[in-house]
């Protein structure tokens, strides 16, 4: 369970969001500039809220009143960015292994095989990110986040930088991820069709405010 109740001023823009999500995939839906990325950055711990609380299950990650701010590296929250952000100096294998090394987890070849096969990236292991296509890069980024064994996975417009054809190529992997990976996700997008296919619960964001909460039906109502 993810509980968010925060507010934050960013220059002229002010963001204020409150929701509780229990779904497998919480869709954070809104036009660009609605504050989706800022909200996700706060959940990841990359941005500190001015006021409020963020908690997963019973663990408080942010509580401004109690002066609690757990830094990103201790949150165990995976993050897939729109622009993949693979480490250019490491090959695919090392990128995938990065989270395991940083968290000092023991090797888990079974999990690695399962995830690389699920994402069809087993044949890319020795390549550098510079030699991957946009779609391949995004699949490796997904695998890298999953292999750090997060308790929540944030996906910020993971299809945003891809063209139409590539999107259709990645979407089935995301659906597979939702059904097989067993990690709750927060999925950010401004694309209603994507949301309908992936999300189990929707948070509608407009101008920095939550305007609707509920099932995928709110997409048509809004």
């Amino acid at each position, binding site marked *: 369970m993810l509980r968010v109740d925060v507010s934050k001023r960013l220059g002229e823009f002010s963001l204020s969001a409150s929701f509780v999500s229990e779904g497998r995939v919480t869709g954070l839906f809104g036009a660009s500039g609605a504050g989706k990325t800022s909200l996700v950055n706060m959940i990841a711990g990359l941005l500190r809220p001015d006021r409020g609380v963020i908690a997963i299950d019973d663990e408080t990650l942010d509580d401004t009143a109690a002066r609690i701010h757990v830094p990103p590296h201790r949150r165990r929250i995976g993050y897939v960015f729109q622009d993949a952000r693979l480490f250019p100096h490491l090959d695919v294998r090392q990128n995938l292994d990065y989270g395991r090394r940083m968290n000092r987890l023991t090797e888990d070849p079974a999990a690695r095989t399962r995830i690389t096969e699920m994402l069809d990236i087993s044949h890319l292991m020795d390549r*550098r990110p510079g030699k991957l296509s946009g779609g391949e890069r995004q699949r490796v980024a997904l695998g890298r986040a999953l292999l750090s064994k997060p308790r929540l996975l944030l996906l910020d417009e993971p299809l945003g930088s891809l063209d139409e054809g590539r999107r259709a190529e990645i979407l089935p992997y995301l659906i597979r991820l939702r059904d097989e990976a067993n990690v709750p996700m927060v999925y950010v997008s401004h694309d209603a069709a994507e949301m309908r296919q992936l999300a189990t619960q929707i948070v509608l964001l407009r101008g920095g405010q939550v305007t609707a909460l509920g099932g995928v039906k709110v997409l048509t109502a809004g």
Partner: protein
Amino acid sequence: MEMSPAEWTAILLSLRVAAVATVVATPLGIALAWLLARRDFWGKSALDAAIHLPLVLPPVVTGYLLLLSFGRHGPIGSFLADHLGIVLAFRWTGAALACGVMSFPLLVRPIRLSIEAVDQRLEQASATLGAAPWQVFATVTLPLALPGILAGMVLGFAKAIGEFGATITFVSNIPGETQTISSAIYSLIQTPDGDSAALRLVAISIVIATSALIASEWFARRATQRLHGN
């Protein structure tokens, strides 16, 4: 080109002085470059200015200030001598200190630029994967900045090899102890038959400096390639 033993001594001493100066200055240079590139703090511009000071001060002033503070009767010099048995004035180690101080701005600058060029979004990604700040630095920032660090070391080394004013002021010009290539050339051109020996050392200096520039260029090119992930 025949080198006399005295010329070889000066060349080897210069190489040793510059190598020690560079190796000792590099970790400090990386730490300060990172602070300047990534942190905001009170006195940041004063620190930046202090690092660049040896570049704009007359070298003889820097050398004299070193002599005042690190000399046998200076506050730092007497402490080092009395408590640790380290004497820098008029020793080759003092030459290394003078060269390290004089080349420090040239060492720090490329390192700072290369750290600034490291995409902070990659550092964020690293943190979300569980890397503590020191791990982010060691596994992302440092390797991506490495070509710039090497370029800074090359430039610093080249500057240290050629340093003259601060060195001769602080540690004088003692053959076999503090007489580097530059001070040897200085002595030779003041001796009646020293011209050919001076010219040989001049040639050596040109070779060392040119190689350093070429090496520095090469590292800079590698840096760009590395950042583009090829």
